[in-house]
């Protein structure tokens, strides 16, 4: 029983990280109806920035917030420069552009920082919090950070005029433009926010999986699975899905199928959800008129 509880809680901790990345995916999906294949590499690149800042002697939390801001700027720039020209292009071109971004970010990181695996510090103390035996403090901290990000986002979209404008631009671009919202910039802001959230996920996962240019491949897949399970157009669903996938992956990996097949769980979930219930648990059902 102890082992089971331990696995569930560990699953919640990694699930929090999947949830953040899933949230980033949903952000971009809501604004543009695109799924960003480069989201994981963006997060990885941001984590490397944090790593070099920390190595240069910047204190952890200063580096953390600086990285989040830099990731935001990077996201905005990428939307403006790279995504903008293919806004109305066929899906294949857009997917190819995302894939191009993925390989460019991956190789540029490898080029600058080499492919050797690096350790990444955790901001949380070594010894377990509150004397509990189930979770390390990094795991608790990662969950906490996810929840804080989620609350901040909720507050931003619910209570600020800018958040309202962004929601409007995503839901009905034409009408928003008519009432004076700069829809193009709202999309860019959405990209920036998604990149910022992704960077948080990267910095939270790096102490667990270590830092290397390919660290996000599997995590991105779990995040996809989480976003799809929860419903790709529902932020709360994505967060729930992320936690669910984390727990499922850990428990199944530990007790049923073994660690080697963990990624297959994501594959089965993705294909299963897409074929059986494409809207996910909490997503809107789309009806197309022909």
């Amino acid at each position, binding site marked *: 029983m102890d082992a089971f509880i331990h696995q569930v809680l560990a699953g919640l901790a990694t699930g929090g990280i999947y949830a953040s990345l899933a949230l980033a995916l949903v952000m971009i999906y809501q604004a543009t*109806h*695109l*799924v960003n*294949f480069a989201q994981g590499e963006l997060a990885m690149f941001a984590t490397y920035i944090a790593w070099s800042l920390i190595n240069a002697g910047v204190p952890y939390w200063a580096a953390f917030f600086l990285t989040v801001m830099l990731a935001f700027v990077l996201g905005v720039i990428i939307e403006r420069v*790279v995504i903008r*020209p*293919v806004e109305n*292009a066929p*899906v*294949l*071109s*857009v*997917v*190819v*552009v995302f*894939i*191009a*971004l*993925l*390989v*460019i970010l*991956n*190789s*540029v990181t*490898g*080029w600058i920082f080499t*492919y050797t695996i690096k350790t990444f510090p955790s901001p949380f103390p070594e010894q377990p919090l509150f004397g509990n035996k189930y979770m390390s403090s990094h795991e608790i901290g990662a969950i906490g950070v996810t929840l804080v990000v989620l609350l901040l986002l909720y507050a931003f979209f619910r209570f600020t005029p800018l958040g309202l404008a962004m929601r409007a631009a995503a839901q009905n671009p034409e009408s928003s433009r008519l009432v004076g919202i700069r829809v193009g910039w709202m999309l860019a802001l959405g990209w920036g926010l998604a990149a910022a959230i992704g960077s948080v996920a990267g910095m939270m996962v790096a102490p667990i999986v270590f830092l290397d240019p390919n660290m996000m*491949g*599997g995590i991105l*897949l779990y995040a*996809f*699975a989480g976003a*799809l399970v929860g419903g790709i157009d529902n932020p709360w669903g994505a967060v729930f899905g992320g936690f669910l996938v984390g727990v499922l992956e850990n428990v199944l990996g530990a007790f049923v199928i*073994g660690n*080697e*097949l*963990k*990624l*297959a769980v*994501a*594959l089965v979930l*993705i*294909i299963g959800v*897409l*074929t059986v219930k*494409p809207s996910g648990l909490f997503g809107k059902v789309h009806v197309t008129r*022909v």
Partner: protein
Amino acid sequence: MSRNNLIVIAVVLAAACVLPLMVSEYRTFQFTLVLVYAIALLGLNMLTGYNGQISLGHGAFYAIGAYCAAILMDKYGVPYWATLPVAGAVCLVAGFLFGLPALRLEGLYLALATFALGVSLPPLLKYHHLEQWTGGVQGISILKPDPPEFLNGLGIALNQDQWLYYFTLAVTVAMFLVAWNLLRGRIGRAMIAIRDNHIATETMGVNNAMVKSLTFGVSAMYTGIAGALGAIAVQFVAPDSFNIFLSITLLIGIVIGGLASIQGAIYGALFIQFVPNIADDISKAAPWAIFGLFLLAFVYVLPAGVAGAIRMGMARLQRKRQNP
């Protein structure tokens, strides 16, 4: 086909035939890989270029074909040439089965599902219950085939690399002929029509579901046969050589070569085989950075790829000739 086209094809084929006699063994091996990639790209192009179904996981079918060949040769002593039909058949079935759920997915979602397939296959190949066949992380080494005896009787002395090149060339020509025939006929037109307007196609009485999943199957078959040939040429299969970047390489090949173009497969294959070699001199990470930049440049400037550029150039030349 016009007479000019036939002449061009004959010249290219003749050049391909004398090529291994002119270059070193290593270059011959590289050109064998070009042919292998050309078959794989042709398969992916059928699916993505002609039928409009995006696959980011075709490396998985390449891997299945490669493992089929390696397992049959290593464990069961099957001759190398006999592994190709088996690899093709296995991938045809695998592709068809994957194509069935893929029917319900469009555009982006299909890209996602196939991406998941491409990412999760290498760990599956390492799975310890399959290790007695797949060899786990170590993979399987196989022997390079010798040229057949009767060639010596005819007084033709080929080394192993040259023989394998000619063998692959023959397979490639056959596969291209079959693809050309398939794509210009009724099924090919149905594939293109589904890509352009699937509702109209359905109304015209085409069985969309059947054509789409069959296209998936045939496309996987091509890529699988390429995988088997690739395994024989490289003499080695291991899970990590079939990671998601292989699938991405294939996608890069068809975008650069030209979507919905048969000859595009050859340009794409030359690109993905030789550009990394050149770029490797700059840095270990450079090939991928260059791939990425090329991809972006092609999407923005030349969405029809090299094949499209050539087509455009020819058309312009012809116009000049007609009214100088």
